[in-house]
């Protein structure tokens, strides 16, 4: 055997033995080792999956809080409904967002009063794709918005929760007597994010809105200051607004190794903050994440069947 062959053989055995050892010891090292970021991502991803019990069996509530960070979106400051002068330009601008572990897109909409909350045509029966919702409403752009009940990940998008507000009218949730999540736009075009009761929403003149969260930036201040937000790495959708009124739709693709793994909530917060957002909130993500612009879907939804059927979208028309 030549020296080269012997060296290759040793190298191969070294790699194989180490990979086997790595696989065997990974659960212990990931969960109990010194690598906080890996631990936080894994625990956060499992907590937001269909099997959070795998984590709650191992760690106490206090330990989980220490691992994923103490991000409590209910303790947000009261939002300042600021005023702005609308920008002169009306053209929408699409930009790429690229990072080591993700690829995404951000759409800038200068006039926030063009944002509407739209729903699937037959929302009691099933959801619609973002493309269908956009086409049905003659919209130039659309992004997935509110949450819905999704048992076993096979929901048809027909069971939205919380509120849906369109042109100032509550399509669902108007009779709720407690605070629920809201991401909406007031009649004056200010983006609102946080927990509000329908009564408070009416007082704030919210004209378009859905339920999801958490808020990420309020009054120009980042809300995630410890940890990565606790939801791990995944496809994300978010909305933000600059102080000049410009609304930002952000989508980050994920679950596609080699192309884009996804982003943490902290990533999303940082992107929107650096892009000038004064208010920002997370929208429904995962396989729902879809951005439609100028007649086509610009990102790559993570489901093999393409766009998911969902109940609500924020559209631009």
């Amino acid at each position, binding site marked *: 055997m030549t020296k080269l062959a012997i060296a290759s053989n040793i190298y191969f055995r*070294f790699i194989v*033995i*180490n990979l086997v*050892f*790595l696989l065997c010891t990974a659960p212990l*090292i990931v969960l109990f080792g010194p*690598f*906080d*970021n*890996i631990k*936080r*991502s*894994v625990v956060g991803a499992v907590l937001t*999956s*269909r099997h959070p019990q795998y984590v709650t069996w191992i760690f106490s509530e206090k330990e989980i809080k220490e691992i994923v960070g103490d991000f409590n979106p209910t303790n947000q400051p009261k939002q300042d409904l600021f005023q702005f002068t609308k920008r002169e330009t009306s053209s929408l*601008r*699409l*930009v*790429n*967002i*690229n*990072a*080591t*572990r*993700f690829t995404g*897109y*951000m759409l800038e909409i200068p006039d926030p009063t063009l944002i509407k909350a739209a729903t699937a045509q037959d929302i009691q029966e*099933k*959801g619609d*794709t973002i493309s*269908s919702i956009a086409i049905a409403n003659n919209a130039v752009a659309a992004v997935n918005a509110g949450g819905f009940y999704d048992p*076993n*990940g*096979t*929901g048809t998008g027909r069971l939205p929760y919380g509120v849906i507000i369109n042109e100032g009218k509550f399509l669902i949730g108007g009779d709720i007597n407690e605070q629920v999540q809201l991401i909406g736009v007031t009649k004056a075009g200010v983006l609102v994010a946080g927990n509000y009761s329908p009564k408070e929403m009416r007082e704030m003149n919210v004209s378009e809105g859905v339920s999801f969260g958490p808020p990420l930036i309020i009054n120009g201040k980042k809300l995630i200051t410890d*940890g*990565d937000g606790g939801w791990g*790495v995944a496809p994300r959708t978010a909305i933000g607004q600059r102080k000049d009124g410009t609304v930002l739709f952000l989508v980050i693709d994920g679950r*596609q*190794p*080699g*192309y*884009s*793994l996804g*982003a*943490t909530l*902290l*990533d999303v917060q940082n*992107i929107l903050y650096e892009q000038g957002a004064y208010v920002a909130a997370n929208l429904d993500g*995962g*396989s729902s994440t879809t951005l439609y612009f100028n007649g*086509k879907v*610009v990102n*790559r939804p993570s*489901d*093999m*069947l*393409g*766009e998911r*059927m969902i109940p609500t979208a924020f559209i631009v028309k």
Partner: protein
Amino acid sequence: MKSSYKLAIWLLAGLLFQASIYFYLDRVLFAPATSFQVSAVTEARAVIDGQTYYSRNKRYMAVVKDESVEIYATSPKSLLRSIPLNQQKVSYFKWLEDRDLALMAVYGDTAKDAAKVVLTQINPYSDGYRLSATIDKLPGGSKITDVAYSTATNVIYMQVLVANGPAQYRVYRTDANQDLTRVYLSGSRIGRIGVLFDQDSLIYDNLAEGIVYVRNGDGSWRVISPYGAKYNLVGVDGKNTIYLAKVNAQGLAETVFKGKLKVGFELDRTLTKPTDVRFLTMDGTEAPVKK
């Protein structure tokens, strides 16, 4: 070199190797936040041989050849991309009915019990990473022969031929969470498969028994074909209407029934002559018999 010294070198190198992997994962891949760049989006602005497939509205066309699959825009006709098959073969290709995406299944000639089949999403404008589901450790010569899916529930069931003479099949399931599992059925001689539009429910038939079943996502199942005769599945449409063919002793269809779960079945049409179920369609425009 002393063996204890060699061992120490090995252990040290192994430790460094593993630490570097964890360090990369911790500091780069799973860092709480990562630096990003913002850039403007730039819009990327024949004679055909091989099997062709048209998308809805005929906006796109796929040509499946021996070595590659070519995707064309039809108006104006232009080659968008060519996907090399790398000595694999296509066993299934279908454009989705409501969107410009296709599903393609490929298989390779591999050794016994090491076959791998892949179901892949084809996006006319995306030439990078392709979403796919890979089923491996299959008997040699295995291939995906049918796919049932619902774009409402995002569930996909794949029928995999695992043996010939007589044909034996397995069914695998994947969903929006990218969970891939084998679905154990009441038999391995499976005809067509279908799925309900708004529920994670697989409809399939057991050809040996002539019985059609529904198998739900939670594992529960029941017989849905009427008793007293043999039935094969023709298909399930987008309104959850199930079409069954009543077959004679030779296994040929004579009548087609349609119905829904929890409602029952009624006669849809009587065929002019006994017909192989493989050539039946739900809308009654029976596919021509191949010679």
